[in-house]
């Protein structure tokens, strides 16, 4: 079906020659969901590179025992900014970017429900991010030389109180994230309204692509989970600047309250981050297995279940705080419960591949890697949900290994799958498969080299957030090994970025539907015109393009 015999056409514009000011203005003033989505993804990639460089510096510091590449203070700033950036300025805009670009296309709409709110969301997110990074210049206030926040990405009280965290660095953390959180909420409300209100005729909720379903539940989690963080940050700023006593233990305040508020946000947040990967896998695996998704209703049900259960598991981050044994039991049980719908998803993706005609293109390779790696991450997650086990390994490298396995080996791998899958739709050209394979193998080998040994180091007793260690504890080899893995990952990401730029100009012309796919976005041109569809689509099944391509055997006959 994929036809590539016509030349690539880009939308024709009025001006014939390139003019910087016109182009610049077109991007700044745009309310088009595709441009905004692209800007979200590109800014996320830029922040990914910045935070990745920070991670590399930390790995270089930890490569040898008793190393002095960076000062302890710098190391604190590095891990704080690395974590904050990865969560709020890479993960969140990736959610917004993918949902912005593809939700309207997949439900057959011309734009988001509130295009201007969408533009507002993007710019407020970006300026929130820039505000956070301005801390490098302005963090010390007028008297200091300037510094970034150094309180860790979850910024536990009372370390963040005025007495212990002088200067403006912590304020930049709180306000930058508060501001970009407003953008995330705006974008999430927009996605919900778009999904519920702008579906094309015939696109009932039960026919909606699973990608859209996952993004809908993701947006639900964002609007429920982000306000608690904002509330906590408002209280923190009241404490720091108005002398309030929320987290001031000397005035009767409670430092544990901050932990509760933060993790009420923080645990749904990790599901918010991983959901785009779930969404992408649910689209990519069926296409490359040539089979419809196995157990579609169960998949949607599992996602909705996660969307509710994950709101009640937060205190498993706090087993070491000393809660009552009833709370420990409750949160251990609920944390294990959330593994059930996740297990359903893993099972269904695997079952989709079973008996399928699998094409091992790069997007599918990343999906396969995701399945194995995310399963591993889930299993260490179950281990950490056992409270006594967590007491042993709390704040150790085991935990660092666990969440890097979910977020890098899981989320980032899934995002790469999505980027290889949809790049032809966004640009009209294929990403190079050869470079893609190099990227895939180097990345997967590198990340396993880095993150698997972190579990061993945790079991050997290495605490997280230490800037160096003495030799003779059995930590040297694995730290060295991890750092080599980090370098391999960096090479892989460099290949990916080269691939993205090279293929934009020289890639093979893709055509509208290079993967022979079934969802609506492949039914318009690549890249899609500003209005997406000349005529709004009408659908009668979950696979509208399959129906078009196989008029003798359409899906709607079986609904």
């Amino acid at each position: 079906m994929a036809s590539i015999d016509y030349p690539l056409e880009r939308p024709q514009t009025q001006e014939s020659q390139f003019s910087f000011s016109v182009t610049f203005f077109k991007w700044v003033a745009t309310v088009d969901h595709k441009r905004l989505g692209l800007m979200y993804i590109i800014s996320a990639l830029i922040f990914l590179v910045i935070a990745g460089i920070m991670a590399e510096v930390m790995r270089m510091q930890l490569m040898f025992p008793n190393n002095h590449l960076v000062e302890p203070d710098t190391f604190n700033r590095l891990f704080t900014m690395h974590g904050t950036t990865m969560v709020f300025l890479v993960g969140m805009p990736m959610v917004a970017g993918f949902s912005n670009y593809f939700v309207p296309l997949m439900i057959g709409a011309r734009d988001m429900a509130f295009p201007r709110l969408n533009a507002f969301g993007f710019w407020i997110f970006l300026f929130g991010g820039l505000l956070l990074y301005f801390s490098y210049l302005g963090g010390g206030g007028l008297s200091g030389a300037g510094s970034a926040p150094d309180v860790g990405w979850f910024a536990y009280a009372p370390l963040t109180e005025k007495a212990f965290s002088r200067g403006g660095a912590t304020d930049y953390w709180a306000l930058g994230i508060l501001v970009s959180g407003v953008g995330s909420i705006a974008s999430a409300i927009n996605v919900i309204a778009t999904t519920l209100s702008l579906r094309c005729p015939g696109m009932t909720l039960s026919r909606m692509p699973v990608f859209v379903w996952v993004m809908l539940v993701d947006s639900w989690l964002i609007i429920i989970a982000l306000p608690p963080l904002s509330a906590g940050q408002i209280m923190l700023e009241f404490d720091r600047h108005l002398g309030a006593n929320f987290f001031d233990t000397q005035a009767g305040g409670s430092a544990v309250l901050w932990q509760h508020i933060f993790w009420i946000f923080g645990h749904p947040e990790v599901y918010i981050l991983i959901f785009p990967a779930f969404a992408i896998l649910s689209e990519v695996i069926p296409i490359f297995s040539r089979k419809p998704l196995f157990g579609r209703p169960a998949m949607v049900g599992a996602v909705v279940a996660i969307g509710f259960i994950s709101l009640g598991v937060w205190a498993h981050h706090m087993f070491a705080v000393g809660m009552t044994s009833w709370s420990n039991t409750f949160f251990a049980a609920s944390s294990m419960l959330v593994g059930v719908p996740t297990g359903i998803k893993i099972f269904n993706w695997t079952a989709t591949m079973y008996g399928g005609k699998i094409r091992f293109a790069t997007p599918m390779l990343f999906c396969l890697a995701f399945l194995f790696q995310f399963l591993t991450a889930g299993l260490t997650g179950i281990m950490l949900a056992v409270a006594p086990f967590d007491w042993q390994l709390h704040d150790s490298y085991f935990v660092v290994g666990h969440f890097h396995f979910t977020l890098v080996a899981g989320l980032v791998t899934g995002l790469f799958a999505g980027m290889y899958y949809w790049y032809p739709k966004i640009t009209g050209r294929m990403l190079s498969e050869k470079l893609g394979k190099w990227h895939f193998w180097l990345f997967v080998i590198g990340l396993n080299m880095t993150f698997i040994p972190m579990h061993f180091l945790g079991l050997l007793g290495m605490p997280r957030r230490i800037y160096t260690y003495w030799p003779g504890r059995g930590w040297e080899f694995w730290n060295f090994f991890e750092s080599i893995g980090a370098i391999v990952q960096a090479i892989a990401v460099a290949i990916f970025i080269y691939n993205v730029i090279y293929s934009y100009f020289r890639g093979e012309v893709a055509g509208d539907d290079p993967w022979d796919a079934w969802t609506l976005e492949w039914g318009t041109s690549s890249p899609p015109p500003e209005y997406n569809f000349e005529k709004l689509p009408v659908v009668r099944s979950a696979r509208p393009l399959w129906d078009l391509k196989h008029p003798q055997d359409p899906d709607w006959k079986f609904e």
Partner: protein
Amino acid sequence: MAAPGITAPGALELERTWKTPDRGAVGVIFLIITETSLFTIFVATYLIYIGKSLNGPYPKDVLEVPILATVCLLSSSLTIYFAEHALKHRRLGLFKIWWIVTMCLGLEFLYMTGSEWYKLIYHDHLTISTNLFGSTFYSLVGLHASHVVVGLSFQLLVLIVTLLGFPIHTQLRRVLFLSWYWHFVDAVWVVVFTVVYIIGR
């Protein structure tokens, strides 16, 4: 290449009967849900910190139950409904009257809150930094008051364009959404009132 239209058998019938929810309604409902989440944290914090203040003044010494302000705010929910009802039937004069009454009730509520705070700050010397009661009280009541201010600002906008002769009945949807927000602000007050002035005292 121009994309061929994607269509399915029975498309005309489907297009004719296809209905989806109003996007503005969905947007406002989920805005209210996200606001609820924000208030929940402040309310929970207030509840957790009841009786945890290490020094006075304590709620039972200084707080007076704001009956009048509560009556004002809650009845404004009713008057905005009357205004909306009048607008539905294109009775613009009546709409303006009820709208102005609603705004006056909202302003009266803000005035009462302001005088309450004045008394607390200058007479009872309770500020946000005095004790945990002060911190939680001013942040929760202040958060609610700020929502009243936002609601009043939008109501002022509607009033101004109406008085300038803009045909406001063409924007019935938006007036309706504003009234939902206003009802939400009132409902939050019921919670705040219960927590601060009944349980907290």
